């Protein structure tokens, strides 16, 4: 069973704010899902290589030719709060 403390720890890692109600709910749901997943704990997987990618590829390289980047104004137009040619975000330090 996953505890409330673990849920809050993972939520912090994932930068997700969860309501008290969500914390309770997620704890129960993750416990249920992981109980199912835990069955792979019974398999003998010694010496089995992990698969992270299914198509065998060597390093894929392209010619190192300079290309134009996105125009700054096009990209900044998508931002919630552009300012002075940059992305503006709240200060990392809470204001008093």
């Amino acid at each position, binding site marked *: 069973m*996953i505890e409330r403390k*673990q*849920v809050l*720890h*993972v*939520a912090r*890692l*994932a*930068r*997700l*704010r*969860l309501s008290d109600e*969500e914390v309770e709910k*997620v704890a129960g*749901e*993750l416990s*249920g*899902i*992981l109980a*199912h*997943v835990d*069955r*792979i*704990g019974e*398999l003998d*997987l010694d010496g*089995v*290589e*992990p*698969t*992270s*990618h*299914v*198509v065998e*590829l060597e390093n*894929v390289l*392209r010619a190192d030719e300079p290309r134009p980047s*996105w125009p700054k104004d*096009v*990209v900044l137009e*998508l*931002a*919630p*709060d552009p300012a002075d040619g940059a*992305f503006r*975000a*709240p*200060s*990392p*330090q*809470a*204001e008093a």
Partner: protein
Amino acid sequence: MGELLELTVAQAARKIAAGEIAAQEYLEAWREAAAGDELNAYLWRAEDGAGGTEGSLAGIPVAVKDIFCMEGVPTTAGSRILEGYEPPYTSTAVRRLGEAGARVLGKTNMDEFAMGSSNENSAFGPVLNPWDRGRVPGGSSGGSAAAVAGGLAPCAIGTDTGGSIRQPAALCGIVGLKPTYGAVSRYGMIAFASSLDQCGPLTRDVTDAALLLAALQGRDPCDSTSVGIEGGVEAPSREDLEGMRFAVPAELARDAIDVGVREVFEATLETIERLGGEIAEAPLPHAEHGISAYYVIAPAEASSNLARYDGVRYGMRSESAGDLIEMYETTRAEGFGAEVKRRIMLGAYALSSGYYEAYYGRAQRVRTKIAEDFSAAFADFDFVVTPTSPSVAFGLGEKTDDPLAMYLNDFFTVPMSLAGIPAISIPAGLAEPVGGGPRLPVGFQVAAPAFGEQKLLDAAHALELAIGFEAEPGDADG
């Protein structure tokens, strides 16, 4: 006009090329049909633009899952966090369809970030199944499947990470193909689980699926994991299955399959034998652990991919003030729906210190075993077959309170995704849902070795011809 909408894509393309139909007239007819969407299948529809005149898909309108970026067109991936986002570039898949002469008819609804098997996780409301509007169309490409089945588009594209093309195709009575991982470029396709995501067609028949795949596939310098299909893809013409060997997984959990679905599956096996195909059981002992491996690997990759939605560079930002970390946390809390949060939490948990090896590490090893099982089967067989989904379309709201029950819908589609191999779902018949009611479509899944799309399409074509599935939504139960 009605007759225009009856044509398959291949038929329409031929008539347009021969000058028997004007591309503009065909496009207008479909725009009008799409404008009558009562299924919530579309999130955006193109208002203008001319039909294409050159290429294999000249004049063909296509419905595009709202996960594909299109320059200057709203692209949400079914999420509030991307509401109002208009990408500055177009995905390779959509660009290739355009180069083949196709025109985008609209963007289709989907489960948020392609996470779901019912389309109930869309921030913009569920899609209704055209066969029974009280039921789900499947997911996550539910809008694409419902649009094609409901006569709102002649064909569509979607994405499949663990069954998101095949399962909705099955539940809506159409054809859905997940190509081999690497067959189609993922550039401009909003990422869910990068080692699994693949674009593919949802169509009325197998020939149309081949036509779309031929245009979509190919290596793309913008996606280093794309390799394309050597030799390309041609229209299938095969009408028998002589000399072809079909494997049924020896461990196939028949008890977990609804009785009506099982009957259609067994009847389809008989059809294969009648066409000259051979059927035998093959061991795929690890396939049953597919769900466990998938629901670690896919959420793990998702938790990493979705880290980019931080309210800084694009998409929404929470109005509530605070410091930087608070802004991240509240933006993501307000922007993501319940299922996306659940998967991010699951993935972040599986990757967190102390649990990484027990979950992510083991899941990756199970993935290897599943791929090895398929390789062993393909040493003796041409194809592996299963039902696409254990049930027909279920009721709206029926499984929303039980995430694990929802995940088990993907039981038969996830193993192929983990192995990266191509698989197609074709409508094989109708079955009564458990608990009674009008009969609903059942999908039959055929999987082939990596990059074996041509053989897969050829066999599916022969099978489709013999099955002769002609039921449509709105038919009296028959």
